[in-house]
């Protein structure tokens, strides 16, 4: 057992820090603080800067122009970006590109991977539909073959990123006669295709998501990723790549550290909040919980590097991270008292309103990316070997 980073990994972290300190401008920081989780022009430009440095391919195999770094090193890299809320392309980089490498045609690889690597192309997920949330296999968006094309009609919802990504990774029904999870296929298509309409859905958590309407959208048959009717498998591959990134701890650590700083500065009853034993107790509990999550994150990353699949571990990461986000922000608001309610831009807002923002976003973390209930099913059934209900 050894929990330490190697000197090389420590140097790598230093290198990233130096780079980010040097290249993340005050203007970019300002844009991030006000952009409600939508990357603005500066963030998009910075994505290309990361691409030019070769860092978007940090975990990609070398044959695809990546750096082939270990998962531990990738975690170090993404932690540093998360600590600064830097947009890095999310699962386009960590999951969909990796899935393309595994299942896509040579032409698709050529068409997408180099552009993704340069930070020029981002893909959003088109899975969820109004009638198909956790029960994804019940989706009804149809893709019908007509000669050398597919014609796609249907509706997607909670398509986060559809307003700033160029492409959509779409799961649609190609054969209604097969058992429901067997008749699905994945397509990749430009969001600018005729017949695609993206409409905003504004949320309580400030983050904008979208609904996407597909009205007789014609795509060449070559837009299909993987074999016909293998969509559920392709989605599972993508999920396996994504899994480990669903529950990360760096943002929690950052919010905790900022909360701690507030508790040093703010005074109540003639003393700093941090000197109040009740506050101390709450902070200690949060610190312990974040440490537990940190250990689990590196345990999962380490498993990936050993060629193991961290199934229960990754699901537990997602559950712990999302519930801890809710708890940290809730406790933080209680600790800070009246000013805990103040949002970004308000006088007296602690942590530039970040705590309030995260509190409002936290419900989404708990149900998004596979609800925590489904994650617990996965832990129990795939991790502990309990029988399906």
């Amino acid at each position, binding site marked *: *057992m*050894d*929990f*330490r*980073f*190697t000197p090389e*990994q420590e140097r790598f972290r230093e290198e990233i820090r130096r780079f980010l300190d040097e290249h993340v401008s005050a203007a970019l920081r300002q844009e991030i603080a006000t952009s409600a989780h939508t990357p603005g022009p500066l963030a998009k430009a910075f994505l290309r800067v990361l691409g030019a440095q070769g860092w978007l391919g940090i975990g990609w195999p070398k044959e695809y122009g990546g750096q082939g770094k270990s998962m*531990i090193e990738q975690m170090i890299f993404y932690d540093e970006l998360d600590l600064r809320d830097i947009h890095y392309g999310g699962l386009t980089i960590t999951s969909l590109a990796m899935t393309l490498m595994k299942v896509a045609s040579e032409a698709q690889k050529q068409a997408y991977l180099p552009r993704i690597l340069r930070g020029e192309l981002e893909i959003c997920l088109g899975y969820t539909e109004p009638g198909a949330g956790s029960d994804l296999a019940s989706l009804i968006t149809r893709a019908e073959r007509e000669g050398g094309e597919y014609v796609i009609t249907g509706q997607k919802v909670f398509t986060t990123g559809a307003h700033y990504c160029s492409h959509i990774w779409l799961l649609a029904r190609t054969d209604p006669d097969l058992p429901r999870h067997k008749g699905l296929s994945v397509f990749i298509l430009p969001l600018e295709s005729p017949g695609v309409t993206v409409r905003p859905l504004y949320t309580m958590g400030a983050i904008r998501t979208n609904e996407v309407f597909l009205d007789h959208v014609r795509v060449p048959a070559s837009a299909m990723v993987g074999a016909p009717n293998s969509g559920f498998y392709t989605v599972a591959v993508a999920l396996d790549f994504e899994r480990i990134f669903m529950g990360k701890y760096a943002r929690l650590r950052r919010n905790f550290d900022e909360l*701690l700083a507030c508790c040093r500065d703010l005074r109540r009853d003639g003393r700093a909040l*941090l000197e109040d*034993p009740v506050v*101390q*107790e709450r*902070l*200690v509990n949060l*610190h*312990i919980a974040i*440490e*537990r*999550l940190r*250990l*689990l994150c*590196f*345990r999962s990353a*380490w*498993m990936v590097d*050993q060629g193991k699949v961290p199934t*229960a*571990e990754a*699901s*537990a990461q997602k*559950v*712990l991270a999302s519930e801890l986000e809710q708890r940290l922000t809730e406790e933080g608001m209680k600790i800070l008292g009246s000013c805990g309610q103040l949002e970004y831009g308000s006088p007296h807002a602690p942590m530039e309103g970040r705590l309030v923002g995260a509190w409002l976003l936290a419900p989404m973390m708990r149900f998004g990316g596979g609800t925590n*209930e489904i*994650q*617990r*099913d996965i*832990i*129990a*059934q795939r*991790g*502990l*070997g*309990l*029988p*399906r*209900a």
Partner: protein
Amino acid sequence: MDLELTQEQSQVQDAARRFLSRECPPALVRRVREGEPGEAAALWAGMAAQGWLALPFEEASGGLTVDAATLAVVVEELGRACDPTRFIDCVVSCGALIQDAGSEAQKRCWIPALARGELQVSLALLESPADPDPPRLETHLEPQGAGFRLNGRKLFVECAADADLLLVVARERGGVRLLALSPAAPGVELVRLRSLAHPHLYEVRFHGVAVEHEQVLGNDLDAAPHLRTMLQRSAAFLSMAAAGGTQRVLEMAIAHVRERHQFGRLVGSFQAVQHMLADAWADAETARLAAWEAVTELHSGESAECKVAVARCASSESFVRTCLTAHQVFGGMGFMWETDLHLWTRKAKEIEFAQGGAAPWRRRLAKLL
């Protein structure tokens, strides 16, 4: 980073698990709990024969000089087995104090005997019923003739009546001293405490007990730093034992719901049950990682203190919480006296309360933040 046991450590783990499943069944744990510590004599002798009692000590003193990780593997297995012996108190805590603070003569006298299982030592540290961090030790040594007199009292001393030696923390003038004395010495009074957790706890009162110079550890030495080192180290190993116990209880609960049927289906197929156990698994897994990180980074300065504190709090809470989840899962079948689950539940509270419990570590963590 390398987050699994080495091959050698895995072999130690396998051997320890085999040994304990043979020599330390729940029936023995129960006999010790319902009877006296002497019920575990054969197990203790077996542990000595395995070399476990020599693990933490330098070769020069008759020990085996293994690394902390190997000792941790054994302690984790002892935790799994609901170990009814005084291993952590006697070997990990008192043994380390003798090793660190004792004179050469004292080490020669006590450590080989301890490692052979022939000397049982209990730590007499705590004084206040409520506060594990007394601002000032009341138990004190006063010079008398060629030696000292000891007055005061200690609480929560494990197995005091069956110890060969008590290792007493006392004040002398401004400093802190460690001294070893027999619980049978004139002026020592033992009062049995009744605890839900540890079956053999005592209050020990000292009424002008005569203490010779040779009984005081080291020479003109302030024992406070040794005490701090020992408490940190022992907290890491208590975490390890808790992590082992937690895993075992979770396994028992899982095995139960994979066998028990209600409503014509396995209890383990109900989502409500699955989710309780999924949470318990995450709890157990993260507590174990925290304990391992604490043990492997014991010597890394301030960050070690932080990690030990996290491990101590996380693991003792998780152990208790997992036991309570298991009670819910087992229902009446875990509540009966004759079923074994409550042995671990009591062990969980024993570990939680040991050496003043997790509370001082929470306070330390608050300061370190």
